[in-house]
């Protein structure tokens, strides 16, 4: 290997310079040859950037849901069958949550969520908003990784005394209080006035949902204490108490086993009715990775084909070069170039083309990735590794395809080569 490198590195500058003068002399031809490489490398770079962006986004989303959380959704049907179900099951409730927390030692905390039906827009003295209203347990914010940027969160005491407090998501705050200064002001939800005690920091998730699971959207939402929502807002008798239940599982416990146990309890408490659905965010991540991997493989194949096509283009042009420069090759042999020296000269030329192509390809890849980002709002992220990999792959392919023309050049009979013009 070291001999291989010594073979290349020996007095490299004049050879690279010579290669560049030849490539510059055939500017258009070189550029057309380069295009194959540019698109190949560009595709690889863009693909890796989009794939990595997706991964980072996915992790952010999972963090939003909470990696150690299980989420139970109320799935009570909206049609006539609801009455039948209600004979056996009261729907998802705070009592369910308490039962789970009491019997399962691995439950860290839980938070109930009730989506409050809003008749009309929400009003404040400054503006109005069509934000969703969620009544949530005080633990909800910490479990979901939400923090106040202004004011404070509500606590257990606020919840217990049905305090008429509200926390605003970032976007909701901007709509309700366009002039700012929301803290201490009042907002009207249906017929109830609540006092704003805090505004939440925006997490800036680009997507609203992840693998079919709603994740973002908290920015355009108004939160009130769960008990306030249950006691002070009117509720249809047939409705379940909770729309959602978040359960945080202790780090030592296996998530799927916990999910199974909780499913069993709920199933019993709901009289075997199929009116709830359990989501394990960690499983969603695995699913997401699977999809991403398929995407990456498909893109790799496309990029690979493009690189091979580029390589064939390089080979084609190098063969033309060898034909064109037969007499020069003969002269080099006459002044003492060995076969390996000729191979080296042509391989250096191929490598220069490849590296030039890789360099322009990196630029193309970055442009493509940002283009994708601009039009589809997919997240992109570049890594140094992807760039290094692209350059190495590109150079390898080029050298691979350059070997045949270089060997052909070295095998020319010097006498015949000198005679050709």
């Amino acid at each position, binding site marked *: 290997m070291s001999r291989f490198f010594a073979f290349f590195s020996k007095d490299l500058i004049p050879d690279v310079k010579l290669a560049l003068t030849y490539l510059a002399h055939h500017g258009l031809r070189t550029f057309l040859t380069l295009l194959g490489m540019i698109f190949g490398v560009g595709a690889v770079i863009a693909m890796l950037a989009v794939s990595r962006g997706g991964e980072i986004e996915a992790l952010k989303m999972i963090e939003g849901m909470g990696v150690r959380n299980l989420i139970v959704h109320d799935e009570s049907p909206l049609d006539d069958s609801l009455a039948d179900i209600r004979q056996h099951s009261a729907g998802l409730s705070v009592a369910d949550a308490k039962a789970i927390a009491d019997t399962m030692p691995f439950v860290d905390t839980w938070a109930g969520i009730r989506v409050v039906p809003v008749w009309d827009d929400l009003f404040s003295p400054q503006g109005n908003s069509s934000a969703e209203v969620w009544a949530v347990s005080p633990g909800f914010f910490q479990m979901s990784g939400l923090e106040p940027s202004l004011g404070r969160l509500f606590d257990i005491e606020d919840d217990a005394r049905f305090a008429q407090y509200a926390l605003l998501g970032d976007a909701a705050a901007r709509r309700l209080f366009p002039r700012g200064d929301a803290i201490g002001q009042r907002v009207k939800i249906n017929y109830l006035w609540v006092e704003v005690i805090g505004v939440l920091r925006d997490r800036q998730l680009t997507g609203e949902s992840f693998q079919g699971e709603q994740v973002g959207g908290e920015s355009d939402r108004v939160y009130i204490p769960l008990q306030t929502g249950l006691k002070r807002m009117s509720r249809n008798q047939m409705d379940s108490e909770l729309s959602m239940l978040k359960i945080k599982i202790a780090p030592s416990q296996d998530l799927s086993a916990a999910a199974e146990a909780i499913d069993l309890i709920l199933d019993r408490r709901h009289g075997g009715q199929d009116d709830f659905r359990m989501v394990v965010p960690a499983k969603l991540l695995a699913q997401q990775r699977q999809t991403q991997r398929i995407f990456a493989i498909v893109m790799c194949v496309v990029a690979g084909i493009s690189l091979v096509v580029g390589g064939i283009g390089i080979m084609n042009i190098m063969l033309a070069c060898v034909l064109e420069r037969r007499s020069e090759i003969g002269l080099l042999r006459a002044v003492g170039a060995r076969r390996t020296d000729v191979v080296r000269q042509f391989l250096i030329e191929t490598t220069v083309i490849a590296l030039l192509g890789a360099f322009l390809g990196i630029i193309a890849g970055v442009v493509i990735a940002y283009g994708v980002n601009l039009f589809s709002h997919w997240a992109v992220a570049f890594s140094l590794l992807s760039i290094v990999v692209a350059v190495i792959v590109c150079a390898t392919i080029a050298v691979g395809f350059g070997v045949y023309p270089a060997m052909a050049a070295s095998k020319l009979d010097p006498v015949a080569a000198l005679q050709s*013009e």
Partner: protein
Amino acid sequence: MAENGNSSLISVQNLCRTFQVGDMAVHALDHVTLDISQGDFVAVMGPSGSGKSTLMNILGCLDTPTSGSYRLMDQEVSDMEDGLLSNIRNRYIGFVFQSFHLLPRLTALENVLLPMRYRKQDEDVRIDRDRVREIMERLGIADRMQHHPNQLSGGQRQRVAIARALVTRPSLLLADEPTGNLDSKTSEGIMTLFDELNADNQTILIVTHEDEVARHAKRVVLMRDGKIEQQVLQQDRPSQWT
């Protein structure tokens, strides 16, 4: 390679080179025997197809004989492998061609230095700049060092090519019709240059069919049909050869 006072620089015995053209074997060289000693100046003449170029290619280690012996500086080179032959071409042989064979993208100086690229890595490849300048000055092209070949006249191009052949201090300078592409006045200048080089003990072999060129050599070898027909010293030459 040790200098041996008695023996020749080049000793060729029963050299044959056969080309296969279809089913026919063409004997380009047919049992050629020739000695060239240090400081000699030989002109090889003969009609085209007489084998003079083939002889030059073999003497220059560009080609290998089908049979026979070729000793260069007391070393048998007829059966050497390509790498060693390349090394011999690089160190001991300087070529001058009819069509100059300069690389168009390189300057005159870079063309002259071209052979130095193929020195082995462990060797000191730094060339004595003064020597290069001295050669180029002697050939009258010192002020053309940074020019590209297409900016030079035919005579200047051939001088650059000769400088390239001399930069390695070759034991043998081989010239194949060196004046073939030049007008008579320029040719005369180039031939005078060969005379001067030979006066400094440079061994030269010229392949030509021009009588005026052969006139500069000390010895003339006449070839026909792959065989050496006649070998005479210049002073013994009949005034008119056909």
